[in-house]
């Protein structure tokens, strides 16, 4: 049995291209690794798979035909988790969906399906969480700025959500952990890379509008006043809103 290692460029399209190649070649025991993960590659000589948009889209279409709309969505969400060594489970998920020609998301007892499902659920949980926890600040030029540090790479789906919600106002959502940002100018979403403050030596925060501090302090007042002292339960508060999110929460400052 030959072991083939497919190396892709780290992107979702790249990974799908590698899957498409492995499926086509009916590889017996394929492995997939991103550019930096070269462990297997050293041993067996990894094959570079070029990223082809066409092959990626085609695979997603096949998945949708076989498993309905949920299948490509689950796969994409699992990818955004960016957890190490998730490729093989994702590949098996594709294979199973195509073989059985049905949506397999419910098959919780299958290890690969469970892994993909867990990853996808982590991402949608965090996505849902930040729909509430993201905080925008009004800057001097009228653009609202929202910095955050998510565990998973949720900025693009999060930006789509806010484009619908805050359609009339321009904003930037900035993932400071990954140096990614999406700008909404009122008409379209523009993703881009942002150098981390340390690397660029720039001021880390944009200048805030004259009214911003007042609104922030009103929100802090509200947050304090709405709590019922005789029901105090800081443990429950931390459980629902873990400390790692507090850094960007206006109400948890000062």
């Amino acid at each position: 049995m030959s072991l083939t290692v497919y190396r892709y460029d780290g992107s979702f399209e790249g990974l799908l291209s590698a899957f498409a190649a492995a499926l086509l070649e009916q590889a017996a025991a394929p492995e997939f690794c991103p550019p930096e993960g070269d462990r297997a590659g050293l041993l067996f000589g990894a094959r570079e798979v070029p990223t082809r948009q066409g092959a990626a889209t085609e695979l997603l279409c096949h998945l949708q035909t076989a498993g309905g709309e949920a299948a490509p969505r689950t796969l994409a969400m699992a990818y955004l988790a960016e957890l190490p060594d998730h490729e093989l489970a994702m590949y098996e998920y594709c294979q199973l969906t195509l073989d059985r020609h049905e949506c397999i998301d419910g098959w919780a007892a299958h290890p690969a399906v469970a892994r993909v499902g867990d990853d996808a659920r982590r991402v949608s949980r965090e996505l849902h969480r930040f729909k509430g926890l993201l905080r925008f600040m009004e800057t001097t030029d009228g653009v609202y700025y929202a910095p955050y540090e998510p565990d998973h790479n949720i900025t693009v789906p999060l930006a789509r959500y806010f484009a619908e919600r805050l359609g009339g106002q321009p904003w930037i959502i900035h993932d400071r952990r990954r140096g990614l940002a999406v700008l909404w100018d009122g008409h379209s979403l523009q993703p881009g890379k942002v150098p981390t403050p340390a690397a660029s030596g720039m001021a880390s925060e944009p200048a805030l509008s004259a009214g911003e501090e007042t609104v922030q302090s009103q929100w802090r007042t509200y947050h304090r006043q709405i709590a019922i002292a005789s029901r105090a339960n800081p443990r429950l508060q931390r459980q629902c809103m873990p400390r790692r999110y507090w850094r960007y929460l206006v109400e948890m400052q000062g």
Partner: protein
Amino acid sequence: MTSGEKLAILADSAKYDASCASSGTQRGGSGRLGNCSQSGVCHSWSSDGRCISLLKLLLTNRCIYDCAYCANRRSNAIPRAGLEVAEVVDLTVSFYRRNYIEGLFLSSGVERSPDDTMEQLLQVARELRLRHGFGGYIHLKAIPGADPALVRRAGTYADRLSVNIELPSQESLTRLAPQKSKERILGPMGVISEGIAEYEAERGRSRQAPSFAPAGQSTQMVVGASPESDLQILHLSAALYRRYALKRVYYSAYVPVNDDSRLPALRTPPLAREHRLYQADWLMRFYGFQAGELLSPETPWLDPQLDPKCAWALRNPAFFPVEVNTAPYERLLRVPGIGTRAARRLCDARRFAALRPEDLAGVGVVTRRAQFFLTVNGRYLAAGAVTPQRLRHCLISGGSARALWWQPDLFDWRADGQGIAEVAACH
């Protein structure tokens, strides 16, 4: 007074309203400001652990009523304030733009008359919707005694309307809120449920039908300020869900805010009781339980140590064991340690292959509790002898089974323990 100071007073006055739901409406962004998602979104949590999803305010805490349990009653010497319509609108919009909130929950003391107050609440909602194109969530209180025509108009702007039933019986209402009556509360509730029913019927015919409180109606009652039993409360809730098609009944543990001889002298709010009532309420709405199954005239109080589903399971051993691989969803739902999500995932997963004991934890079954009530492919799950004591210990929520192991005498075991021995026997 600055609007910051007013905000401090009026948020403080609004904090006893339990509702924070922002779910139940699906509205796309109109391109102006805001939308609603079906599932609702929590934006923060306050230091009491309650979720914050809406800007919850009273328009004013000046009130002509003198309800015994209420912090804002007329005879209390507390700072009073009122916000202008424009101030509430501005706060809502600037909080919403920064994603602090999902929308507004506006209530009010009655400063002059119910109609006057209702008119002002209406004005806030109208300003937000029409002038600012606000598509976020709006929850308005319908003021008891207000003109039904005003309540109907409120429904055209609001996602949710609520009238607080305040106390679980007419007698308590007469005693503690003498200026309010059952009729004045149930009146607007009826108006709202009619409005919702008409809207739903019209929406069936045309998608352009003007909306009316699309996220439905809710209510709230204070628990522990009056003598009603849990059974009475659950029967009342069941009737409200049935008669007025309410989306939610909120229970608010009585917080002793006033010195009043008509009120019980509690040092802390009865939070554990509130929690049990919510659990029972959940069982009625999502698990197919009837109030009469959870409690009876002989045992009208929920067990403080056991959650109501475990308590039901201990009283109904003949129902068990349930076979994981064949039992219908409704039956799985009745097993302690299996919630709605785990039950759904079990049903999904077993379509592909028969489940094994080791698969259960992965779909969210709490095996520590469920093991005593399940068979997997005909095999009873719990290992070792199942004594009534062990069972009760393992079911007591939050209790460590091991620590309790050594003190079985601490817990009284009533006659219903008999049946459980039979469950154990099928092992």
